[in-house]
């Protein structure tokens, strides 16, 4: 079967030489041997008998192994594919759940943001209220226009010429009556817990002893405060004391006064919430 295919036609030549040339060559030689009368062919056959069986066995082993391998690989690939599909489905479910969760969280984020905005607004209101309360109750320093009143004992050592705690109480009440927004006596701010009273020989405010002359400062409307105050009974009574006993009583309007604050703390009284003032 020696083929002479057209040169260059590779595939055709491959097809034409599909049978190994050795078969033809050996067959030709054997024919020649037979005609020459030699009888070695049978012996050669017996020698190669075992090798032939071995070759066939090797072929069978190759085919079997490769079939097994392919089947294993195929089943493994199939198992991998199924496992992948399972995982994909599981992950898709997870993704959907996470998306829902994200949506819910987004909703609560929006709610919280709105709440935060409201809280910020309330905080501003509360800050405002706190500032006003602190100023009104005397907890923090304040400044503004007001009156400075100087009171002193009458000259001479007559007991009726001495300024007493009741005089200063009267004066403070008169200032409040005239519309004072903050009052300090001898530099001591009058707060919601301040007392003016006598202890021993001295008058005390906020438990601090004062000595004459007593300087009382009060903040109020610069247009009306002085006039209002001078019309109060307290002012009248001081005017009387001044003219009758010589007690010193000087009232001066001041453009800018600063009154110290006195921090207040409450730990025994519970607050009852009745709305913001």
């Amino acid at each position: 079967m020696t083929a002479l295919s057209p040169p260059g036609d590779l595939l055709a030549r491959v097809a034409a030489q599909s049978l190994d040339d050795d078969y033809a060559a050996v067959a030709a030689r054997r024919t020649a041997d037979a005609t020459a009368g030699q009888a070695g062919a049978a012996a050669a056959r017996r020698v190669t008998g075992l090798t032939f069986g071995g070759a066939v066995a090797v072929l069978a082993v190759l085919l079997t192994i490769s079939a097994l391998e392919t089947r294993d690989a195929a089943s493994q690939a199939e198992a991998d594919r199924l496992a992948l599909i399972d995982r994909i489905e599981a992950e898709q479910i997870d993704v959907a759940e996470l998306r829902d969760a994200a949506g819910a969280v987004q909703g609560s984020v929006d709610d919280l943001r709105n709440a935060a905005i409201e809280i910020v607004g309330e905080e501003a209101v509360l800050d405002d209220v706190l500032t006003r309360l602190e100023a009104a109750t005397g907890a923090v320093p304040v400044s503004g226009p007001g009156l400075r009143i100087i009171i002193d004992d009458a000259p001479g050592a007559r007991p009726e010429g001495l300024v007493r705690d009741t005089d200063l109480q009267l004066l403070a009440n008169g200032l409040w009556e005239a519309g004072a927004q903050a009052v300090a006596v001898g530099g001591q701010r009058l707060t919601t817990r301040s007392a003016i009273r006598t202890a021993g020989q001295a008058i005390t405010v906020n438990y601090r002893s004062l000595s004459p002359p007593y300087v009382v400062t009060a903040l109020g409307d610069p247009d009306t405060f002085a006039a209002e105050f001078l019309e109060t009974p307290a002012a009248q009574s001081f005017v009387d004391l001044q003219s009758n006993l010589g007690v010193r009583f000087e009232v001066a309007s001041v453009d800018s006064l600063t009154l110290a604050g006195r921090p207040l703390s409450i730990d025994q009284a519970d607050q009852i919430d009745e709305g913001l003032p």
Partner: protein
Amino acid sequence: MIALLGLLVGIVAGLFLEPAVPISLQPYLPIAVVAALDATFGAFRAMLDGIFDEKVFVISFVSNVLIAALIVYLGDQLGVGSQLSTGVVVVLGIRIFSNVAAIRRHLFHA
């Protein structure tokens, strides 16, 4: 008879021993199988032609398998393993087809 025995022994050995193919040899197994098939069909055709010889078959079988695997191995080392595999498969496939055609002509006279 010997051939049948060898076939049985080989199949049984392959099935029951299930020899694990080393990972490094796995790429060459399919090519070796194709080469072995080629040698087998060639032998069958030679038998029908009346020129079969066992020695030639053994030699062509072993050398075909080894050379095919060697070519693919070389191709792998050179970085053209898949192309050379394709070439080997094409050549062996054409040979198998034309051998089977010859066998068919012998058997069916068609």
